[in-house]
């Protein structure tokens, strides 16, 4: 069965995020005065084949951990859905 995994890679709590901080500083210039915080990250959409949802989840978690994220500074949040 084919599944679509959404992998959201974000910086671990406490790791400096110069990209997010720069965006936050730029927003008031556009009139957005009430933005409290910005965190930068990356998102990936990965299509994969697996026997079931659990298998797809475990494969997505493993590839996120081994390649898409650097566990030293990043963590990933994964959502998997079946593709029709």
């Amino acid at each position, binding site marked *: 069965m084919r599944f679509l995994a959404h992998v959201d890679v974000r910086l671990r709590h406490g*790791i*400096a995020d*110069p*990209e997010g901080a*720069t965006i936050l500083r730029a927003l008031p210039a556009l009139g957005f005065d009430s933005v409290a915080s910005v965190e930068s990250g990356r998102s990936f959409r990965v299509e994969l084949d697996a026997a079931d949802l659990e298998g797809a989840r475990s494969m997505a978690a493993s590839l996120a951990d081994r*390649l*898409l994220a*650097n566990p*030293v*500074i990043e963590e990933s949040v994964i959502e998997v859905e079946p593709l029709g």
Partner: protein
Amino acid sequence: MSATIGVVVFPGTNCEHDAVTAVDALGGEGRLLFHADTSLGDLDGLILPGGFAHGDYLRPGAIARFSPIMEAVRAFAEAGGPVVGICNGFQVLCEAHLLPGALQKNRGLTFLCQPSQLEVASTASVLTAGATVGERLAVPINHFSGSYTCDIDTLRQLQEQDRIVLRYVDNPNGSIDAIAGISNEAGNVVGLMPHPERAVSPLLGSEDGAVLLRSFLDAAASTSVG
């Protein structure tokens, strides 16, 4: 005895000829190796040079870590062979877990290409054995992702085990504890963001990088790995 130094070329590496030229100028013999090779041949030391291996896609070093030659690099490092990763090479060594921590985007998100002042913090490594603690060296930097970071336990370990080998005097990229270079526990694997191979002649504005590379060549000449 002259040391033979392998210089690994990934797709996107661009400092390999600088590294070979510097090694040759200091009396060693530089030899280019391709990332798709699976063996190193007869070598005394290894340099992972600067550049943008595999386009720096995903993160600097993230894809290079899986290049075929990396298994041989790991075996050479684990056997005690002298290995130095310069700039992108440092990023590759961190991604490959041959060194702890990670290199993040510079504080201020600026690409930094400028001279930098380093202070030797430890001589317990193949790159700094011939230097003196506290000695200042002028060595250029050229990077976007050079801000060294690690968790607090790792930082304490690096400090207690004397593995912070070089610090920036003015910390231009916001590295934790002003770290410019670290080593593994044994001291035979070193990563640094500055480019010693670009500071080996008065024509380049500084000869201070030669202090580091000479240490490395001496360590390589007396190695029994390879």
